[in-house]
């Protein structure tokens, strides 16, 4: 997971102002973001498809049930039981979003993100990030160990895509933003000339 954050400033202000002069320019900018996010989403879904192809039953592990437990254990996930792995469902849980979400402590919010919404997908994504597999066994140790051996460390789906493509995406979006600002400036100067 990448720690550094590149903050784009003026997206909303630029687009709000540009909307008054050149809606096509706004569309062009949004298209860049949407394209980049869609590409990331597609890559993440492809990762899920690759995971599903690891076993014959299209699950990351042979023991991972495809459906949710009929009689879930009360101690697992607050009584919901272990989630089943359905590749289609997990893939459908991979979404791109431009919702801002809540403002963080650094006064920033999201302008584009990937979501891994399903429980199975989230477990696959982050299992082992905090809890490390022990040598003495334990209920989750083998699961974590196998997961790590087969699919690598935690951050296995959306974060992997983001880590891989983030710089490119940000560069493309930043370039589009600069273009949008330039367009806005052009329109403003034109207005002033009138």
């Amino acid at each position, binding site marked *: 997971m990448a720690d550094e954050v590149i903050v784009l400033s003026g997206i909303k202000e630029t687009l709000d102002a540009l909307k008054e002069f050149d809606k096509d320019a706004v569309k062009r900018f949004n298209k860049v*973001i949407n394209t980049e996010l869609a590409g990331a989403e597609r890559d993440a879904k492809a990762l899920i498809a690759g995971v599903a192809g690891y076993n014959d039953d299209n699950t990351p592990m042979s023991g991972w049930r495809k459906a949710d437990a009929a009689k879930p254990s009360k101690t697992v996930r607050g009584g919901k039981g272990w989630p089943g792995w359905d590749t289609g469902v997990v893939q459908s849980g991979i979404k791109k979003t431009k919702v801002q979400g809540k403002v963080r402590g650094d006064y920033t919010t999201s302008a584009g993100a990937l979501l891994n919404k399903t429980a199975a997908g989230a477990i696959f994504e982050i299992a082992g990030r905090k809890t490390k597999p022990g040598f003495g066994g334990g209920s989750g140790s083998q699961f974590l160990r196998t997961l790590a051996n087969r699919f690598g460390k935690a951050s296995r789906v959306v974060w992997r895509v983001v880590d891989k493509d983030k710089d490119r995406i940000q560069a493309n979006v930043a370039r589009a933003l600069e273009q949008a600002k330039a367009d806005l400036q052009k329109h403003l100067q034109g207005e002033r000339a009138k």
Partner: protein
Amino acid sequence: MAIGAVVARILTQYSDKGSKAAQKDIKKLGANIDKFAKKSAKAFGIAAVASAAFAAKIGKDAVQAAIADQKSQALLANSLRNTVGASDAQIVSVEKNITALQKQFSVVDDELRPAFGRLTAAFGSTAAAQEALQIALDVSAFASVDLATASDAIIKASQGQNKALSKLVPGIGAATLATKDFGKITDKVSKIVGGAAATRAGTLEGKMAGLKIAFGEAMETLGYALLPVLEKFATMLTTQILPKVEAFVALNKDKLAAGFALAADMAFKLLTSAIAFSDWCANNMGIVKGMAVLIAGMFAVGRIAAFIIAIQGIIGVMKLLQKTAIGAAIANAFATSGVSIALGAAALATVGLGAYTVSKMMNPEAETTVSKGISPRGNSKNRDFSVTPYTPVTNALSKFTTGLNDATKATKDKAINEAAAKKNLERQKMLSGSTSLAIGQGGKLYMPNSGRNVIVNVAGSVSTEGDLVTAIVNGIERTTRRSFGTVGAFDRMSAI
């Protein structure tokens, strides 16, 4: 954004909300900084005051230490000059030696100097005194006595009195003491106590004493720096300020004395007046209380001037009444003057205490009658005189005054009529010589012989003085309840 989902942010932007939150945080931070600054300023202010006070104390202590040190040095120098004729150079050398001893053995110079001075006087030279001082220091440390005791013991030993020294240093030995050879004795003493002073200086106690001495020296140094300033101030005080004060006093001593005498005389007179006044108040407490209540009530309604005019009118009328008739005559005058008793009673009720007080002042004998006539009966509530409306009061006073004037006039007329009737009767008696009596209507009046009772038969009713007073009282109470509520003055008056 989905809750519970794994969110991988790709693009991050600043938010308006973020900016506002940032501004809010910055503002909060600023407020906190201001708060901190104020607290800090306060704390620093307290610290500054404390440090100033501490500095003042240090300055005072330093100056005192310097003064004491200066005095000690001067005394030693004077002693050395007188005893051995020491020169300034020798004195400086002695001072250096004392300073060195002070540091070496942690003994303050204020002890060293007197001891050195006495030893010098005893032995006649500074060199011998220095040797003896060294021994005295060791004896002092050995016997745990002060340096003065040790040096005195050595001086006595030098004079053949070994008892004190043998007590301080028991191991000298009788044989040595018996020789009465001061050299041998001191050698023996040195062998016993030698190094004791240095050993004591090396202990924690000695080091602490040395620390204290070092601090004292620092204070003295500081004090020596401050002394010139104080000396300058003292000089200015004595040479400039005090002479001017003395000159002023010398120039104006008579006026000052007269002023003081006048002030004393005035104070005595004032005191005498105050005592007399207090005596009068004590003797006339009833009047004081009555007037106090009266004035308080008038202050409450805020029309003192009008009240005074009204009261003056009452006083004048009452004085006139006193001269003419009292009691039944007044009651009759009330009844015949055309002024209703109720109205007069209302006025009396309003200024009851005032009238009572005034009448009491004019005629103490009238107290009994009036106080009996206006008794504290009726409603016990709402007795606050100060809430009485002013306008009805002044109106009632005015009407009452008018009524009294009319009553006075009627009384005078009646007196004149009676005098005329008497003359007429006397004249008829002289004419008829009859002893029968009948007083009737139509202007025929007959005077009985002296010593007989007179039966009066007139239209209407005739009351005794007591009945009339009772009627007045009842009227007062009725009117008071109707017009003003209960007037607290009655109760106050009864309390007098």
